[in-house]
């Protein structure tokens, strides 16, 4: 093990992290299931003699979570440092990553703050002192959508594309347009049943189509599920996103402000738009205040309302750390992924948060003395 990895490991032990043994070769199935098929193009796949798909470890979060799930423990913090393998444009495919995953911590605010503080400390350990952090929060965006009174189907679509400005803009265009899905491709009887609001007739028409096509009734979409979405779609077909609501949404997504002003700005934004943001804003405020209390020297904190991750298991607070605001690539990234554990097979919900440092991008210089910890508030939420 290199001196660098040793130094990071001792930092992690110091932060009371368990250091699980995570193999270089990982089963591909859970990774593809959680992150989606698209990640296949960016990882290195292989298969064993029995045809089981394996991949070179593309990251640590999913393997660490699987490890935790297997252990049956309720709460634990894990740290790691090691090589990961990903096909990247203009960067080596084999690179060093280090990070912490905090699984099962119920005091979410405190865990969020600690997560970012640990990321900053790790970067400092590696010789980076001047840092620029952007934070985002999907929960605030979802609160805005909800208090604007948008239908559930629309909220879900927009929520899914949160963090991807181009896709979000395309969604808004579509929802503002005249037609949100025409019904004229449907058979006349089915259309009549929809117009009459006869849910039962719709469902039985679909069920008979399924039977005709010999679709297996036990796997995949059910007639009830299709009928439900069809009725919902019909109800929304004539509805358009009102221009004033769209303006509110766009004004919100444009917010890019110092974190210390964010609470004030969000309050006045919500008041002007007449949309109460309630609990999510309160949570946001507490977290932001706790981050300010850390008094991080040489660290600028900004809130960007449109910043988020498009992976659907990220649910709330997210952040990225750069060496400067104009740096192209982040040195570290992290956030809250409360939905991942259930995706990986956990029977009950399990909150989790974590971060990863791209050690190779940091170009580490090791100092002899351990850095002063950034964290002065312990577990206050």
């Amino acid at each position: 093990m290199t001196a660098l990895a040793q130094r990071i490991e001792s930092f992690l032990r110091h932060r009371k992290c368990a250091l699980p043994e995570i193999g270089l070769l990982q089963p591909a199935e859970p990774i593809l299931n959680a992150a989606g098929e698209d990640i296949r193009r960016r990882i290195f796949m292989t298969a064993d003699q029995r045809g089981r798909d394996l991949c070179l470890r593309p990251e640590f979060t999913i393997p660490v979570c699987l490890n935790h799930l297997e252990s049956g423990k309720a709460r634990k913090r894990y740290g790691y440092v090691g090589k990961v393998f990903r096909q990247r444009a203009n960067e080596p495919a084999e690179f060093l990553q280090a990070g912490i995953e905090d699984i099962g911590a119920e005091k979410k605010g405190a865990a969020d703050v600690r997560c970012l503080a640990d990321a900053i400390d790790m970067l400092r350990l590696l010789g980076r002192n001047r840092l620029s952090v952007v934070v985002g929060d999907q929960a605030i965006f979802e609160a805005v959508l909800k208090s604007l009174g948008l239908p559930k189907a629309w909220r879900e679509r927009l929520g899914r594309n949160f963090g991807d400005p181009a896709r979000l803009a395309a969604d808004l265009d579509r929802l503002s347009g005249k037609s949100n899905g025409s019904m004229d491709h449907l058979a006349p009887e089915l259309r009549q049943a929809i117009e009459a609001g006869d849910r039962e007739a719709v469902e039985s028409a679909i069920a008979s189509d399924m039977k005709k096509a010999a679709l297996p009734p036990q796997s995949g979409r059910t007639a009830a599920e299709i009928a439900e979405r069809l009725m919902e779609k019909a109800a929304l077909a004539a509805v358009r996103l009102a221009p004033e609501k769209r303006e509110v949404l766009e004004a919100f997504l444009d917010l890019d402000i110092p974190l210390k002003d964010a609470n004030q700005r969000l309050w006045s934004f919500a008041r002007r738009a007449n949309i109460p943001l309630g609990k999510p804003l309160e949570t946001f405020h507490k977290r932001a205040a706790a981050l300010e209390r850390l008094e991080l020297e040489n660290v600028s904190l900004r809130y960007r309302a449109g910043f988020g991750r498009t992976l659907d298991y990220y649910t709330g607070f997210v952040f990225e750390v750069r060496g400067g605001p104009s740096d192209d690539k982040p040195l570290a990234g992290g956030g809250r992924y409360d939905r991942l554990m259930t995706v990986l097979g956990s029977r009950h919900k399990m909150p989790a948060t974590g971060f990863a440092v791209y050690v190779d991008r940091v170009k580490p210089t090791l100092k002899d003395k351990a850095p002063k910890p950034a964290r002065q508030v312990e577990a206050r939420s």
Partner: protein
Amino acid sequence: MTITVALPSKGRLKEKTLEVFAGAGFEVELPEDSRSYRGSVKGRPDIEIAFLSASEIARELIAGKIALGVTGEDLARESVAEADAFLDFACKLGFGGADVVVAVPEAWADVATMADLDDVAAEFRQRHHRPLRIATKYWQLTQNWFADHGIALYRIVESLGATEGAPAAGTADIIVDITSTGSTLKANQLKILKDGIILHSEANLIASRKMRLAKEDRAVLKEICRRVAEAAAAE
């Protein structure tokens, strides 16, 4: 110096290709030994013909082992990510047309577009505890297409034949497949999404971008491309 042109080794694709080449003034002489895969062009000692399978032609062009070839655009684009960096699609030949499409069961009355499919894929895992499954032999095209539409939550189930039967067999929920008339899809109660045409494919004359050619060979290659394009346009 000679330049090697790879042509399909069998079937309608071969016949049609030879027709177009003849129309362009390149009369391909088949090997006398029927087991040989080498041919020539009458009066053109500077051109060599290799008869290969259509998918092999795509691979060899990408690898830069042959300079020019005729194959389906679907195979060429399926064989490598960012095909345009490897291949120069010189001209369409006007035959072998078929579409690579996204098709879902007709019973999915609520799904008419990719946007609908996006909604369905997103909630599929929560409802069924597994991702939406797509049967296809077109990994590359499917991944690119779904990424372009912002859909990540699905899994590909590889299918090497009778893909249209996968939904009824329960091995996949939807398919990405090639179809020329759509009748096989219809017979299997599948419908093509309104904006679900991934590629209008047909036979193409394709030059490799990965092969270095001597100046005179480059000139021959350009001559073939120009004359074949003219002949194909005149058809």
